[in-house]
């Protein structure tokens, strides 16, 4: 997604747009990628893994990727999927300690990585993202470090070690880069997000364990939008939080889902659950449950994997780009002045 970053934004809203998928079709959606106007949804649970392809209209285009551990192309514990600009689908697999690359049609291209703690090795690789030059950043979870590779799988560098200090990690999960190639890391065990410059300088940290805005309970997947806003799946708080590039809390998404098209089609042909729905409050059904993977499409739609509710919720970021002349210069302090 390439959108030039404006000087500032008029943030006019972030409404819910629609949901895709349902139980059976998109079981435990874990990560989501978009290519050629198709939505690729990684579905993972113990003993099952596949990538379901849907249209924006919730039409099922089939699956790619097979569960297993016998062959290079099999997916055992896939964690994150990311498309590069050429349509290659990079997949981190925590169970096989590998990065696996498939084509958009599911053809196996290559894989690399073995279990270990040396350069080029992994111990439960989880979050992945790309730098602006196409290199792959990998969260090497049980080695408590971040690694960088060329797209061909050549080791470039690593940083971080186990600990709770600045720049240390304890089972990191999600990674994301912004327009300047700064790197965000969700440090799962310490319930914080750390931001680093591309040259590894620690910049700041967001959060600690809690339920208030800006606090986390097991932060997992990250995404950065073209305006450099950061999104964090605050998984066990059942929400996604939004921050600006300085780490200031902006908003949260707790879920506002309606039924997907596939869900409606199912219910219209099943009378018994239809009756049961009439006997209870449906309020809970709109909420996010253990959200995981996040991504944006080119139209600033935010896709949230609603892991426990077997669907992807989509929200539309509505903004108006501002020129420098549209907004007053930065001010130092809060103000009660009304104009």
């Amino acid at each position, binding site marked *: 997604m390439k959108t030039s970053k404006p000087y500032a934004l008029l943030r006019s809203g972030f409404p819910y747009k629609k949901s895709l998928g349902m139980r059976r079709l998109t079981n435990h959606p874990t990560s989501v990628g978009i290519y050629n106007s198709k939505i690729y949804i990684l579905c993972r649970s113990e003993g099952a893994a596949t990538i379901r392809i849907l249209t924006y209209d919730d039409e099922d285009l089939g699956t790619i990727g097979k569960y297993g551990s016998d062959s290079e192309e099999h997916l055992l514990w896939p964690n994150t999927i990311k498309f590069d600009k050429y349509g290659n689908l990079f997949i981190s697999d925590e169970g096989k300690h590998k990065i696996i690359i498939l084509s958009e049609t599911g053809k196996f291209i290559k894989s690399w990585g073995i279990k270990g703690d040396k350069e080029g090795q992994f111990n439960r690789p989880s979050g992945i993202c790309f730098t602006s030059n196409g290199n792959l950043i990998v969260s090497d979870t049980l080695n408590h470090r971040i690694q960088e590779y060329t797209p061909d799988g050549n080791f470039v560098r690593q940083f971080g070690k186990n600990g709770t200090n600045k720049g240390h990690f304890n089972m990191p999960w999600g990674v994301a880069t912004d327009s300047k190639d700064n790197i965000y890391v969700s440090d799962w065990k310490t319930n914080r997000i750390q931001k680093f410059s591309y040259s590894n300088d620690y910049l700041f940290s967001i959060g600690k364990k809690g339920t208030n805005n800006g606090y986390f309970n097991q932060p997992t997947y990250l995404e950065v939008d073209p305006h450099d806003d950061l999104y964090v799946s605050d998984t066990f708080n059942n929400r996604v939080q939004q921050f600006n590039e300085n780490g200031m809390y902006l908003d949260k998404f707790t879920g506002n889902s309606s039924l997907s098209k596939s869900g409606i089609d*199912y219910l219209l042909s099943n009378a018994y659950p239809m009756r049961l729905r009439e006997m209870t409050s449906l309020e809970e059904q709109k909420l996010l449950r253990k959200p995981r993977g996040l991504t944006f499409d080119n139209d600033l739609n935010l896709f949230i994997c609603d892991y426990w509710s077997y669907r992807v919720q989509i929200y539309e970021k509505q903004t108006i780009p501002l020129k420098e002349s549209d907004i007053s210069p930065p001010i130092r302090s809060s103000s009660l002045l009304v104009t």
Partner: protein
Amino acid sequence: MINNGSNNKLETYSHLMRRAGVGCSIDELNEISQIPYEKFVDQILSPENPDSFDEDNFDRYFSHEGIDIWSGRWLYRIINGGYPLREKISIFWHQIFATAWFKSEHPNSLINQLEMFREVGLSDLKTILTSLSKDPAMLFWLDNNDNIDGEPNENYGRELMELFSMGVNNYTENDVKNAALAFTGWTFTQPIPLYPTGHYASNFKYEEFRHNQDSKNFLGHTGNFNGEDVIDIIVHQPATANFICRHIYNFFVEDEPQVPAWNIVAPKNPEAIKDLTDSYHKSNGNIKEILRTLFNSEWFKKSKFKHLKSPAELVAHTLKTSGNLREIKPGILDYVSAITNMGQHLLNPPTVEGWHTGKEWIDGGTLNERVNFAVSEMNDPNKPGIKEIINQIKTSKDEITNENLIDLCIKLVGQSNITSKTKNDLLEYSKKIEGKSLKKHLDRTVIKLIQVIVSTKEYQFS
């Protein structure tokens, strides 16, 4: 280091660890045997660090729906957690208050029921039965959601007495009818149905407008009883103490005949049942106090290997020995499948009676599964538990001969009930494995001996 101290003492501690959990390693055994026995029993009942298992880490990798994932969690908890007895008691109550997935296909409720057993399973029977009677999985399983004033359903009221507390011949049909009336209006909230967005929880709900408000006669008491009153009367019945204590004896001490025979076949050890029922009455049905009496009794200490391992116990005990489940990794459902293939699909018992236990776990098919599982699990010298056993043998001061190698393997696997005949068979087998090159191929020889030990009849017992 292998402790050559009193074998009898070590075996008693090992026995306790098998019954209150799923066994322990030789290093753990050496450590705990330094603690006076009664003090150690106190620690088992109330450990200092009961929640040491990293649930977050489990959820990171296994956070999804389904009863089998809960069974996998149970395995991880009982093998690696700080309170194995809590996990054991959850299965104990699950066996008695058997509720199955196949009727509701609602895993949330079943899993919540097992979590409830973990939470209250070592408290007093009144609390346990009250929690059970408010449990959505049980309410649906025995149709109490259809038990309403004017159209009572007696299923739960009957089983509460027949299968869950007193046993047959201790109440009348009139008591059943009145118990059912007392539980009218006890139901649960309607969860959002499974499709299209997955399961949602259900909670207990009391509908007063559906509750029978008439006076009731129950077990010699009269009053406008509600469900709690009925439970209070039940837990004070001598029959309840006998029934529950016999269940406890059957699970923790020695296999009894199947429950339907209990009203015609006397307990194997009436004195033990009396000790337990005395404890029941003295503690107001406190399960932890009953177990304290049990674990400290002489008859418990003499009951080594008189209990046939249930499939869940066999798999968990084997994994505890192999050390193969110390870290979170793919494949947990394979172990759950192994338990199922041996005849015990946890959270999905065949009937409201639960599983038939003891020797009824064994038939031609399930014995095959049990032996094959145990042998295949002990196949790799790099599994942490097996590696520890091999290292213990390598650092033993004893000279390694075929005979003492067998003794060491038996001791390290913790199977001191191996008979002299089996031991002779093992000796003959060991001579065939490597001949004179025993030391050269020690790892391989140990693996093969352990595999034979876990395939013996003796290994089926705990």
